[in-house]
């Protein structure tokens, strides 16, 4: 046909054009990579500084200008642990783990009831749950304290378990609902035709599919429960104090023993940070699996 004679010439011209390109594009990504690293380190720096300071002697901790090089010591950690960090860690662990388990047990069926087999008033239900977070806890603390006192549950770790469950339930339901909505409808239909009851379908088909979402939800609950301060400080005393309470108590009594403070803060943050680091893939995967619907 008529195009046949020009084709080879056109092709070689195009080939000539495309050769220099790879050279041009290699600097851009390198700059971006460097920038990304710098941003990451700068953003992370306060945490790094906190951890570094935890290993310092008090004299090195609070200097002007700030000291970068020092001889490290474990003194501070020892002293922190000696002043009762242990019980606080156990309390936090208990409250966090148990409340998270409770949240999952309640939220998964509830999310199911507003997504895969929805109730009639789904929007109203979702709004109700999110509305429970709109009254600041600060305002309700007096009534809560009075009620808790009446039932002799002050300074009892179970009080925190219950309250943390109620605190995290709305976001857990919201998150699990989005993950459920990602499940292809045809899979549920196929299971139904195959003879599976709703329970079987959930157990064998749906839950395995959304397991990254469950991990992500659990991680969020763990973060919020572990780091909660206000309810803990008001509703606990010597027995059931959690880590944030311990940390703050530590501050007021120890004043400006800064390195010790950083050691305490590092210990306070450590469990959740490790959990977050380990599970962050699940978190990103879970959130991107359909965090928004």
């Amino acid at each position, binding site marked *: 046909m008529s195009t046949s004679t020009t084709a080879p010439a056109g092709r070689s011209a195009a080939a000539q054009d495309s050769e220099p390109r790879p050279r041009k594009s290699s600097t851009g990504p390198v700059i971006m990579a460097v920038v990304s690293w710098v941003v990451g380190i700068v953003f992370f*720096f306060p945490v790094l500084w906190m951890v570094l300071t935890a290993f310092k002697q008090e004299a090195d901790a609070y200097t002007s200008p700030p000291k970068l090089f020092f001889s490290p010591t474990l003194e501070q950690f020892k002293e922190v642990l000696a002043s009762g960090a242990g019980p606080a860690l156990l309390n936090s662990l208990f409250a966090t783990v148990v409340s998270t388990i409770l949240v999952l047990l*309640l939220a998964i069926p*509830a999310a199911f009831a507003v997504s895969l087999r929805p109730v009639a008033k789904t929007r109203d239900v979702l709004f109700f*749950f999110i509305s429970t977070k709109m*009254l600041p806890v600060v305002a309700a603390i007096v009534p809560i304290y009075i*009620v808790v006192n009446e039932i002799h549950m002050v300074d009892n770790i179970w009080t925190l378990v219950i309250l943390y469950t109620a605190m995290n339930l709305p976001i857990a339901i919201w998150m699990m609902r989005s993950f459920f909505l990602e499940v292809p409808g045809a899979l549920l239909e196929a299971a139904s035709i195959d003879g599976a009851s709703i329970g079987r379908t959930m157990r064998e088909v749906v839950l395995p599919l959304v397991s990254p979402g469950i991990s992500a939800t659990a991680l969020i609950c763990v973060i919020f429960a572990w780091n909660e301060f206000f309810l803990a400080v008001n509703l606990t005393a010597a027995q059931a104090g959690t880590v944030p309470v311990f940390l703050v108590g530590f501050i007021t009594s120890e004043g400006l023993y800064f390195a010790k403070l950083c050691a305490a803060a590092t210990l306070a943050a450590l469990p959740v*940070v490790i959990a977050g680091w380990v599970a962050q893939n699940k978190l*990103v995967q879970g959130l991107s699996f359909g965090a928004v619907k």
Partner: protein
Amino acid sequence: MTTTIEAATAPKRAAKRPEHGPGSKADGWSRRFPLLPALVFTFIITQLPFVVTIYYSLESWNLVRPGSRHFVGLSNYVQVFTDSQFRRVTLNTVVLTVGAVLIAVALGLLLALMLNRAFPGRGVVRTLLITPFLITPVAAALLWKTTLLDPTYGLVNFVLSPFGAGKTDWISSFPLTAVMMAIVWQWTPFMMLLILAGLQSQPGDVLEAAGVDGASNFAIFREITIPHLRRFIELGIVLGTIYLINTFDTIYMMTQGGPGIASSNLPFYIYQRAFLGFDVGQSAAMGVVVAILTTIVATFALRLIFRTFSGNEGSV
């Protein structure tokens, strides 16, 4: 056979509830059943204190003078609205919340865009970037107050001193800003993760088509990416607003609301009234007002921001 009978009753069927299957009463309850435990639990634990709070808000009750507790109707609310400090504190709350949410979303967007490309060590950088969100707010507040913003020993001033600006006492001079910096630092990773999820869930072929159609990177970002991200950003704004309005720990640790009430937000102010002023009635009334304001702010923020993005995102 039965067809004639069914045909006779068929026109009425739309109105009558079927015996089995969806729409029947039994089906309605079987759908509600999984929801009930969570619903009942939440209702009891949250509504009971809420109702009691409303009840207290209608009383004049100061814990220092227990005998004088009596019913006063809405006068607490009147006092709340005529309290000039309350208005100042509300303004603080709005500034703090809106500012923090918007900055966190903007920064989160930038960081997410940065993380969306592959580069060596991307996983490590991402790990570093999410850490601030994992740290206890009280610890983070402490960190900012002492390590970073302290006038003499803090790093921020250390870094700024070569430029001659290293003498500011941030906590005293710019308390609200200082608090905002701390909470933005903590919440940016959350926004970043949400937006990153949005970026990574973009359909690849749509982006390729746009490239072939001749769109520049910026045009692609504006016309395709931003509309797609809209839902994720919306979620970030709603959740962020709800959590950030209730900021307490950071203010408690950094500034104690001061100087005066310069960096108090509503929850902290309520706390002062309840725990330092011992005025239960007043603080309860403020709490109820805050609950209402929060609802309004959350809805308003959404509408305002997304009116600028025209509704061009068609449903796929």
